[in-house]
C-alpha cells in the first residue's frame, strides 16, 4: 500500500514524465518510504515568510513529511548548534544559510556531509537543468558540500528619483559629488554584513582614497535596520541608499514611489552573489532520507521559482521563468563577474578587506 | 524530677558572636504558676522566653518540659518549635493581617487537624474567654491594639498549650487599657489554671500578676522569689533598684550576740534582719524601701534611727516628698501630709528591722 502511495506521489512530483532509467526511480521510492518513516526534516534558515507560509506547507502536502524550520540570527544558531554537537546532539538535517555562516562556520567546522551524492532526482541531477557547465554548482573546494542555487548581479545602490535624477548618478565619481553630502544612507560599513560588503566592493574596485571620500567626506548616515533605510529612501530623507534590497523596495514601487535601483556605475565592475541562500547537508543528520527528499525538491523548479519571484533573485536553473525579473540582474553570459560569494573571497579576502575598510574609517 | 515541676530551665547559655546574652540561667516553673522574667531591655529575658518556645537554640544547658527534654545541645537534642505545644503572645501580637479573627484563632487547631465541628466551638469559646465574641468575622486589620492583643491571646490558648508564653504583651497598650488587660490577664490565669511564663520590664506588672518573679540582669539571674520576697528583700542592689525606689546607706557591721547592727557613720545604728553572713567589722550597705521608713522630728536617737536634714520639700498632692541629706547621701522619702518638717530641720529616719536588708559593699 505504502509503495503504491509513494509511486502515486512520485508520479505527481515528476509530472513531466520522461523516459527514466529504472534505478533512480527505485532509489527515489525507497527514499520516500524511508523518509515518511522518519516523518520530518529539520531545516535551519533565515526567517523568511515565503519559506514558512508558502514552501513548507507545499512540501508537507506533497510528501507527507513535516518540516521543522528553525530560524534566528545565524550567529545565535551557529553557537547553539556547535554547543549541541559538542554534547553529541545532532538535530539538524539541512542548512539554508548565507555565505558567511556556511563558509566560515559550517564548512570549516566539519558540520557538513557531501550534498552532491544526494541529488538523485533527474529534475536536479540532470546537468541540462542547470546553467553552468557540469550541472549543479558547488562553491566549496571539494565541489560537493555547498550548493549554489542563485547567482544575481548586485545592484549597487538605490535612488529616489524625486530627489536624485538618474542622470545625476551615472558614475562612481557622481557618488562623491559634494551635492550628495549628507544625502546617502547605508548600513554601517564597520559592522560587517551588507554595509561592509558594499564598502569592500568599492575598496576593491576603487581603492582606499575613494572609501575616504565616500564614507567620510560625504557624511553618510548609518542605520542597522533594513526597514529604516528603506523608509528613508522612500521619504527622500536620504535619497541615496547603498545597502537597500530589491525585495524591500518592491512593495513601495507598487505604491508609486519613484525608487530606482542602479546596477551599473561607470568606473566599477558589477559583481554577482548567491543570495539569498546556499544549501548544505548536515553531517550525522537525524533524518537522512527526509533530508534527501527535501534537498531534491528544494533544488527543483517549483521551489526555486517561488524564491526567484519573491526575492528578485536569479536562479542557476535553466527552466525557471525569468521574464518577471529586471533583466539587469541576470548575469550576462560570457562575462566573468567577480563573485561576492566566492569561497576563498568569503573565507579570507572579504574579511581582510573589511578590516582595511574599518581601519580607514576608525 | 519533682512532680511539681512543669518546666525546668537549667544552666542555659546563649551567645551571639562574642556577646553572651543568656549566661547560665536556671529556674523551674510549677504547674499553674504565673512566672515572670523581669529585667531591663537587653537583659536576656526575651531570649530566655524564645529559647523555651524554640525560637532560639541554646548554646548550652538543658530545657525540660513535663519531663521531656526540649533542648539539650550537649546531647544533640532539639525539639522543633512546632512540636513543643506552646502558646505564645508576641509583643507585636503578630496577628496575621490576611486572615480574619476567626481564622487567626483557628490556625493552631487547623494545624493540629481539629475536626470542623469542634474547631468552631473551640475558637468561639476562646474568643469568648478573651471577650471578643461576635468579632470572629472581622478582618484582623480592622481591630484596635487592645483587640488585636486579645486575638493573639485567644490564639495562644485555643488549643490548651502546655505553657503560655507572654512577651511583654501589655507594653504596646495605653495606660488605661494596660491596667484593664492586666486585671483580665490575672483573672484568665486563675480561670484557665495554665502555667504562664511572662516577660516584662515593668515591675508593677510583675508584682501584681506573678506567683514568682525572676529578676534578670545582663544575662544572669539576680533573684527568684515571690513578689514580696524580691520586693522586700532584694538580694542584690540591682534587684532593689529595679523593683522600686530604695534607700541605701553605708555602714559597718557590728555583731552583738545574735543581733546584727549596722553603724551608719555616726548618724545612727540600724538593726538588720538576720546577719546575712557578714562578719564583725565588715563594711556593708543597708537597703530599705522608702515606704518602710517613717520620718520623725528630732528627739532622742534610739536604735533603728538615723539622723538627717531636710533639704527640700515637694508637694505631691496626696503626699509630701522630702529630700533629706543623711550620712553623706541624698535620700528621697515620701511622707504623709500631716508630718510637717521645714527645710533645714533635722529629722529622724525610722527603719523597720523586718524590712532592712544588708548587702555587701
Amino acid at each position, binding site marked *: 500500500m505504502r509503495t503504491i502511495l509513494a509511486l502515486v506521489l512520485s508520479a505527481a512530483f515528476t509530472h513531466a514524465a520522461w523516459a527514466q532509467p529504472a534505478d533512480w526511480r527505485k532509489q527515489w521510492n525507497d527514499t520516500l518510504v524511508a523518509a515518511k518513516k522518519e516523518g520530518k526534516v529539520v531545516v535551519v534558515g533565515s*526567517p523568511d515568510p515565503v519559506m*514558512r507560509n508558502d514552501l513548507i506547507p507545499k512540501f508537507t502536502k506533497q510528501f507527507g513529511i513535516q518540516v521543522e*524550520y528553525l*530560524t*534566528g*540570527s545565524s*550567529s*545565535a*544558531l551557529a*553557537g*547553539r548548534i*556547535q*554547543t*549541541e554537537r*559538542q554534547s553529541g*546532539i545532532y*538535530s539538524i538535517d539541512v542548512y539554508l544559510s548565507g555565505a*558567511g555562516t556556511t563558509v*566560515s562556520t559550517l564548512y*570549516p567546522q566539519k558540520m557538513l556531509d557531501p550534498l552532491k551524492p544526494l541529488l538523485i532526482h533527474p529534475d536536479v541531477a540532470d546537468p541540462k537543468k542547470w546553467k553552468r557547465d557540469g550541472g549543479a554548482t558547488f562553491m566549496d573546494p571539494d565541489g560537493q558540500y555547498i550548493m549554489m542555487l542563485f547567482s544575481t548581479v548586485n545592484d549597487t545602490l538605490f535612488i529616489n528619483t524625486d530627489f536624485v535624477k538618474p542622470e545625476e548618478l551615472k558614475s562612481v565619481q557622481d557618488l562623491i559629488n559634494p551635492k550628495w553630502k549628507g544625502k546617502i544612507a547605508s548600513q*554601517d560599513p564597520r559592522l*560587517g554584513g551588507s554595509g561592509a560588503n558594499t564598502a569592500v566592493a568599492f575598496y576593491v574596485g576603487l581603492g582606499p582614497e575613494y572609501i575616504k571620500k565616500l564614507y567620510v567626506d560625504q557624511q553618510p548616515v*548609518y542605520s542597522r*535596520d*533594513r526597514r*529604516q533605510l528603506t*523608509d528613508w529612501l*522612500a521619504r527622500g530623507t536620504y535619497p541615496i541608499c547603498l545597502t537597500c534590497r530589491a525585495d*524591500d523596495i518592491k512593495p513601495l514601487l507598487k*505604491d*508609486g514611489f519613484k525608487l530606482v535601483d542602479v546596477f551599473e556605475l561607470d568606473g566599477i565592475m558589477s559583481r554577482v552573489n548567491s543570495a539569498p541562500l546556499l544549501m548544505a547537508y548536515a553531517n550525522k543528520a537525524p533524518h537522512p532520507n527526509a533530508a534527501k527528499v527535501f534537498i531534491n525538491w528544494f533544488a527543483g523548479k517549483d521551489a526555486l521559482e517561488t524564491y526567484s519571484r519573491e526575492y528578485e533573485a536569479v536562479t542557476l536553473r535553466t527552466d525557471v521563468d525569468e521574464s518577471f525579473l529586471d533583466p539587469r540582474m541576470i548575469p550576462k553570459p560570457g562575462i566573468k563577474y567577480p563573485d561576492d560569494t566566492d569561497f576563498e573571497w568569503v573565507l579570507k579576502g572579504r574579511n581582510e578587506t573589511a578590516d582595511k575598510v574599518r581601519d580607514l574609517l*576608525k | 524530677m519533682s512532680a511539681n515541676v512543669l518546666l525546668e530551665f537549667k544552666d542555659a547559655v546563649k551567645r551571639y558572636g562574642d556577646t553572651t546574652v543568656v549566661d547560665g540561667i536556671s529556674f523551674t516553673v510549677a504547674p499553674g504558676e504565673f512566672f515572670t522574667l523581669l529585667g531591663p531591655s537587653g537583659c536576656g529575658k526575651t531570649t530566655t522566653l524564645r529559647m523555651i518556645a*524554640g*525560637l532560639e*537554640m541554646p548554646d548550652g544547658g538543658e530545657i525540660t518540659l513535663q519531663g*521531656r527534654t526540649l533542648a539539650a*545541645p550537649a546531647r*544533640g*537534642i532539639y*525539639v*522543633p*518549635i*512546632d*512540636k513543643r505545644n506552646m502558646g*505564645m503572645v*508576641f509583643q*507585636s501580637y*503578630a496577628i*496575621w*493581617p*490576611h486572615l480574619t479573627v476567626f481564622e487567626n484563632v483557628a*490556625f*493552631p487547631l487547623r494545624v*493540629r487537624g481539629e475536626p470542623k465541628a469542634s474547631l468552631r466551638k473551640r475558637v468561639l469559646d476562646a474568643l469568648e474567654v478573651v471577650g471578643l465574641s461576635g468579632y470572629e468575622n472581622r478582618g*484582623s*486589620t*480592622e481591630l484596635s491594639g487592645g483587640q*488585636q492583643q486579645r486575638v493573639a491571646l485567644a*490564639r495562644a490558648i485555643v*488549643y490548651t498549650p502546655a505553657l503560655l508564653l507572654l512577651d511583654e504583651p501589655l507594653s504596646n497598650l495605653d495606660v488605661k487599657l494596660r491596667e484593664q488587660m492586666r486585671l483580665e490577664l490575672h483573672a484568665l490565669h486563675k480561670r484557665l489554671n495554665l502555667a504562664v511564663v511572662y516577660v516584662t520590664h515593668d515591675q508593677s506588672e510583675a508584682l501584681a500578676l506573678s506567683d514568682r518573679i525572676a529578676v534578670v540582669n545582663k544575662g544572669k539571674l539576680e533573684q527568684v522569689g515571690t513578689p514580696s520576697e524580691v520586693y522586700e528583700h532584694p538580694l542584690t542592689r540591682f534587684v532593689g533598684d529595679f523593683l522600686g525606689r530604695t534607700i541605701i546607706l553605708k555602714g559597718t557591721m557590728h555583731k552583738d550576740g545574735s543581733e546584727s547592727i549596722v553603724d551608719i557613720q555616726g548618724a545612727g545604728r540600724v538593726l538588720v534582719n538576720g546577719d546575712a553572713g557578714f562578719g564583725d567589722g565588715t563594711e556593708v550597705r543597708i537597703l530599705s524601701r522608702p515606704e518602710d521608713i517613717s520620718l520623725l522630728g528630732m528627739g532622742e536617737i534610739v536604735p533603728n534611727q538615723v539622723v538627717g536634714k531636710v533639704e527640700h520639700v515637694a508637694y505631691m498632692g496626696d503626699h509630701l516628698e522630702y529630700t533629706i541629706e543623711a550620712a553623706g547621701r541624698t535620700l528621697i522619702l515620701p511622707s504623709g501630709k500631716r508630718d510637717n518638717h521645714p527645710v533645714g530641720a533635722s529629722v529622724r529616719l525610722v527603719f523597720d528591722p523586718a524590712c532592712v536588708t544588708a548587702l555587701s559593699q
Partner: protein
Amino acid sequence: MSTVTIPTPASSWPKMRGFRLAELGVLLFFCIVMALPILFMLIGSFNINPPGQPQVFGFDNWIRAFSDPQTLNALWMSFLFSIVRLIPSLTLAVIVAWLIARTDMPGGNTVEFLCWFAYFVPDFPLTLAWMLLLDPHYGFLNSMAMHLPFVTGPLFNPYSFWGIVFVHLGTGGIWLNVMLLTPVFRRLGASLEEAARVSGANTFTTLWRITFPVLSPMIIAIAVLSFIKGLESFNTELLLGLPARIYVYGTRIYDYLRQEPPAYGEATALGSVFLLVLFFLAFFYRRYLQGKKKFTVVTGSGYSTLRVKLGKWRYVAIGAFITWFLFMMVLPLTFLVIGSFMRRYGFFNISNPFTLSHWQNLFGDPLFIGSLTNSLIIASTTAILGIMIYSIVGYLLASKKLLFPALLEFFCWLPWVIPGILMSLGLLWIFLSTPLRGVLYGTVWGIALALTIHDSPVSTQAFKSAFMQLGPDLEEAARVSGASWRYTYRRILLPLVGPIAATVGMLNFGSALTSISTPVLLYSAESRPLSILLLEYSFTGEIERAAALGLLITFIICVMMLIGRGLGLRLTGPSREEAKPAAN
C-alpha cells in the same frame, strides 16, 4: 508526642540544618544554572582557536575587544546614559509610587495598573512610533510645531543623546520602578510616618526625613537594578543611536555576536565588564546597608495605612500623571495601533493606506496557534517557578542567618549582567550536560527555566524586601502555634507576600512572553514561542505584523495582569483599601 532526638554534634542543630540545607540547595542550584554557564563562557573567551579545532588559550580575544577605541567610548556612553536616565526615572517613579500608595490621590489603583500596562508594551515598536512622531524630517510632532510662531526648524531630534534619554522615559525602567516601589511604600508601617507628623513635621519633611531614609535600602536596590538594566539596554540605542553615531556597550556586544563567524570570545570579554560593575556595586551596596542595619523591619504593628491628605493638590497630581501618561504612552501607542492597520507603517500619503491584512496574516500564520500555546505554557510556568524559587531565595536573604549572604546575593544579580544571548548559550550547554537533558533541551520547560533564571534579580529583590518588611514575628507566631515550616510558608508567609508574589508572577509572565534573546537558542519546532515569531517578523522587515503581534502580546499580558491582581489581592485577604473602620 515523641521527643525528636537526633544524635548529632551540638554545632549542627536540626533547626538550622533545614535552613542550611535550603541555603546550600539554593546556592548549588544557582551555581549550576548561573555561575557555571558564565564560567563556561569565560573559559571559552580565552580559547583563541575557532570552535571545532583544538583549544588554544590566550588573551587575543580580550586584547582585540578592549584595544578598539570604540569599546571604551561605548562603555562611557552606556554609563552616561544609564546615570542620566536613572535620575529622572527614579525621581518620577518614587513620586508616583508614593502618590499611589501613601496619598489620597484618586485612582491610585488605576495609575498602578497603567504603569504595569506600560511596562509590557514592547519597546522596539514603541521606538518606531517615536521615530514617526519626532523625526526631524517628517515627524508628526515636528510638523505640528512648525505651525507655531517662531518655530523655524524641527524642535525635536530623536537621533541624539537627549532624544534617546527622552524615549527611554516612555519605554524603559520608569514603569518597572513604579511597579517595584509601590508595594514597598504600601507596606511601610504607618506609625513611623504618623510619629513624624505628630512631632510637628509637615508632609514634605516627613517624606524627606523619615519615609525616604527608612526606605532607602529598598530604593537604592531598585536604583542599582535600573542602573544595571540601563547598561544592558540597547534596543532604543540600536534604532536611534546609529544615525547620530552613538554607540553603546550593548550594541558593541551585539555587533560582535553578529559577525561571521560570531565572535563569542570578544563578546564575553566585553560582557565581563558588567561583572566588574556588579562586584563594585554589590560591594558598596552592602557597605551602605551595614551602616543601616536597624532599618530592616519597617512595619509597625499591623499595616493599617493613614493616607496623606493632598487636598486640592490631589487633582493636580492625578492630572499631571494623566498628562504624562497620555504623552509618553498613549500617543506613541496610538501610532503603534494605527501602524498595525497600515499597509506601510507611517506612510499616510500612499493610496489606501489602511488594511486589516497584517492582523489577518498574523492569525492566519500556521505557526500562530502553536506558538501562542507554547508561549502561554512557558509564561505560566515561568511565573509559578519564579514565585516558588525566588520567594525562598528572598526569604533566605531576608533572614540574615545565612552563611554566605553576599555570595547568594551576587548570584541573583548575575543573569542581568551577562548579555542574554551569552547566558542562553551557557545555559544550553548546561542543559545538554545534565541527565535532565530530555526534559530541558528544546522543550517549553527548558525555556521556562531559563527565563525564570533570567528574571532572578528583580524577583529576588522584590521578595527580599517584602520579607524584610514583614519581620519575623508573624512567622514565629505560626511556628509556635504548631505549624511546620512548610505549612507556615504556604499558609502564612506566601499569602502575606501575596501582592509581591503576584507582582513577581506577573513580571515573570510578561517578560517570558516578550523575551527573545533567551528562547532563541533554546527553542525547537515544538516549543517555538510567540516572541520568536515576533523576531522573525521584525527580521524580515514586516514591522506592521510585528506591531500587531506586539500589541497582541501586550493584550495577553494585560488580561493576565487583571487576573493576577485579583489573585494577589484575594491572597492578601481583606484589602486595606476596602477595609472599613471597626464598627465600635
